[in-house]
């Protein structure tokens, strides 16, 4: 009976674990790429979570960003400042 109870408690313990869907970890990618033109307006921001204080998107300035085209990677670098923009 004691073993059964232990097993029962263990099952309850495992049952309480849940995955999280944290909106703060969602990244928004905004920008356009045109053939033959330099890339200078790719922007990364965080999703604005409901329930938070901010009404503007927080930029992401320290991401590793590259464009993958037919197996070749073209890195983008931060445009500077706290803008979240990246350029080629």
């Amino acid at each position: 009976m004691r073993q059964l109870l232990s097993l029962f408690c263990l099952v309850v313990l495992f049952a309480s674990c849940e995955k999280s869907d944290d909106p703060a970890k969602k990244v928004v990618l905004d920008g356009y790429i045109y053939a033959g033109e330099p890339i200078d307006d790719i922007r990364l921001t965080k999703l604005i979570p409901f329930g938070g204080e901010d009404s503007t998107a927080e930029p992401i300035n320290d991401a590793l960003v590259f464009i993958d085209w037919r197996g070749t990677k073209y890195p983008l670098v931060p445009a500077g400042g706290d803008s979240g923009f990246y350029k080629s």
Partner: protein
Amino acid sequence: MNSFHQEILLHSKRFPSFAFVLRRLYLFTSLSILGLGLSAQEVTISGKITDSETSESLPYVHVVALPGMQSATSNIEGYFTLLAVPKKGSRLIFNYLGYRRDTIWLDGSKNLKEFNVELVNEAVELDVFEYSEESNQSIESSEEISKISINPAQLQNLPNLGEVDIFRSLQLLPGISGANESSSGLYVRGGTPDQNLILLDGMNIYHVDHFFGIFSAFNANAIKDVQVYKGGFEAKYGGRVSSVVDMTAKSGNLKKPAINVTANMLSANVVAETPLPFVNGSFLLAARRSYTDILRSPTYQSIFNNVTEADQEDEPLGFGIGGSGSVEPDFFFYDLNAKLNLNLGKKDVVSLNFFNSRDNLDNSSVQDFGAGLGLDTDSKLETTDVTKWGNTGTSFKWSRQWSPKIFNRVLASYSQYDSDYELIDKFTFDTLSFQFSTQQRNKIQDITLRDDLEWKLSEQHKLSLGLWFTRNEIDYLNFIDDSVEVQNQNEIGSYISAYAQDEWSPTKWLKLNVGMRFTQYDVVKENYFEPRLSVLVKPTKNFRLKAAWGRYNQFINRIILENIFGGSRDFWLLADGESIPVQSSEHIIVGAAFETKDFLIDVEAYQKTNTGLVEYSLRFGDPYDTTQNFNDLFFEGTGIVRGIEFLLQKKFGALTGWLAYTLSKVEYTFPGLQETPFPALHDQRNEVKLIGMYKWKRFAFSGTYVYATGKPYTAPVGIYEITLLNGYQQKYIHVGDKNSSRLPAYHRLDIGANYSFNIGKTENKVGISVFNVYNRKNIKYRRFQIQNFDPQTFLPTESKLLQTDVNLLGIVPNFFINIRF
């Protein structure tokens, strides 16, 4: 299992060896083949079991003959047959939930071919200053796996919202969700209400909710017997993949006219029954109607206040402003049961049944932005939100006891469910106004013909054979803004089933139920085989092991319409094998029970593997795009349910009750909606229920406590901004993973007390009941609205999200009086 079974088990031996089993099986098989079932001293006993006060037949009465332990269960008309009972020295014990156990000794004087027995209803005969062994039991866990019997008469002792409600009481059982107070539909072991086969005198009932789901549509005063199969059910039932609730309506008093009147703070209920003149028959009429649209009682006001209190006003999330709102629901419901019962001779019973229920809910509201902000502008949102639904059904039943060993029942029934939902949002800003509207209509018609034959071949074998034909016609209309036709479907489909099952008792400690059901469904032109097997092993007098396995199919589906911003609605459609597949389920159940005279400990673990689940979503579609094929918006999925349920029941004494715990996980996989599996909307991991009833002199006290961990929901989790090609900034809502958010835990405490007394020839009972004693604000669902305009200027602004927690009922006191004469 009850005391009756205890007595039987005293005669059973301890768990025998494997060699012993083989010898017994060999001996049994040999005897069966040679047809040596009966000796000269053994007789067949058959008869009918009825209520001593009303002469109503009593179904599912357990009969056992001692010391031989031959046993039987009375059929739907109360007939029973025992084979190979020693003619002298035997005693028959009759046991039925809510009735006094009766023991009859065989002394050779009674007619064994018409062994009619009258059982005494505890509610009638019981001296109120005492309690008896069976007096306080509302439920009885059958020795059959996952089966429970309910005594509607005893349910009056449980706390309630004014009405004794069968389905509400079922929600207090392990494995059946008790946190769905907004619906009296049953979520059984991870199943949904549409997956339950609900039978009322053979009629298929498709929707059981009354009055916000506070009550079920079934008048407990008109119901005689309820059998619940939570899973692993036998081959004679089909067409649903989760559970079976088989209800038998009262047929009426055959001895004298009687009237039972019940009134409470919400509704009135009258049951009138009388024997028929010149013939051996009876008629019963039961009518119940709420008077909430005429008289707003304190109980109604409690519900009303709960709906309109501040915690259900729209609240801004993070940024933005909300308006002040009011919701004034106006509603009424009624239901009607009628039954004409004729006993034609000693072998034939004919009955005609009628059932009708109707609900009308007007949940319209006005949201005044100007007043909410202290401005002098006429800015408001007027919402017309009207829902109507109801059932109508009738059935004709002819039962015949062809011989003590053969019983047959023929049934023809018609059942209809219809619902009509209309929502109009009208925005007004001074002289400007515009509106959005949606309308959904759904109608199901069901014609069913059944023939069920029971044939007691021998003491060890009871064979059941049957045919079942059902024809469904379904209409579904969905309009937006009066002109955009989202869906307009008319479907007709039929299926015919045949089944055979054998209840085989090779030994006293082993019982098998082996069955096969075959179904042909004409819409997809496919055949379905559904094998069923259940095993019961009783190795000791107190201990039993049980297991069941079976396959189940369902050809009609309740479709969940996902509406992220307004709560989900549902409608019924037939399976077509394409956008709406046939549902299938495989049940695997194992369990064990330990029972003493006073207590029952019952544990069952189950797994259900479901395929053919359907969800309908506009998440990836545009409802205003008339060129879109909306059948593409049906998403097919699978589901797996795993759980374990635990029941500890105290059955005897002044204090009775039970503790139930269920741990379960309901996980769906819909690749078209989300790559990864997600919890079903009704996934509730932990649920605890504590039920206590105490009887003292003329008083009966009761309390129920329910705790359940929060249910999942899909929420808009954030907002993001994209620069469009024209340079404009556009905000979009990001919806989180499906059902990835959880509502807070649900819990509530209900208490009740009643007092019985007589005035003259009338038997009376008065009682009070308090629902949700500590006024817990449990959340029904979260509603989200996007506001894109400034309510002052009505000019476009940044998108704001308004969240509304739509709460379930708060504290609701109630009072009832019952007069019986």
